[in-house]
């Protein structure tokens, strides 16, 4: 998840706000993806009946595979976006210039 790495000039000693903002973007992205995996895999693997509080064997195995598959989908979609020349400004909302 390192596609946010724009070049950043180092301001020695002081705070390089551009670099901090890039780091924050990366954290936001990872955290957003994590939360989506938690939610998606809960929907896919956990039954809504809640007869017990522990994960049973089937649920546990399902979670492991679900997370792996989500990563795969993330990778495939990322490759497609890059192949399409998907640029932040371009694809996000191409005809949506404010």
């Amino acid at each position, binding site marked *: 998840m390192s596609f946010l790495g724009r070049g950043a000039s180092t301001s020695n000693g002081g705070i390089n706000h551009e670099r901090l*903002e890039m780091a924050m*973007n990366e954290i*936001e*992205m990872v955290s*957003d*993806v994590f939360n*989506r995996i938690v*939610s*998606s895999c809960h*929907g*896919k*693997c956990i039954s809504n009946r809640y007869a017990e509080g522990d994960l049973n064997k089937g649920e546990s*195995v*399902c979670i*492991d*595979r*679900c997370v*792996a*598959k*989500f990563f*795969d*989908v*993330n990778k*495939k*979609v*990322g490759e*497609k*976006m890059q192949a*399409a020349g998907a640029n*932040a*400004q371009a*694809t*996000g*909302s*191409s*005809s*949506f210039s*404010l």
Partner: protein
Amino acid sequence: MDFSQFNASEQAHMTKIIEKKQMQDFMKMYSGLVERCFTSCCNDFTSKALSSKEEQCVMNCADKFLKHSERVGQRFAELNAESMGPARP
């Protein structure tokens, strides 16, 4: 959006804020797209590998979503221009 009444420093500030928002929006759109296509296409967890059928579904889903977004964007811009037009002297 009409920023013509902004002075130079305000416009510079605004540009930075908008760029930041565009970056955040793009990231959110991207992870939302991944989630959407995962949810629609992946329903078999007897294996951890993406099947070729699932992969094809994901690719079509992503393709279609981007085309959908673009078309919505075109209509949105047109209707927005229409509704803004007469309201501004």
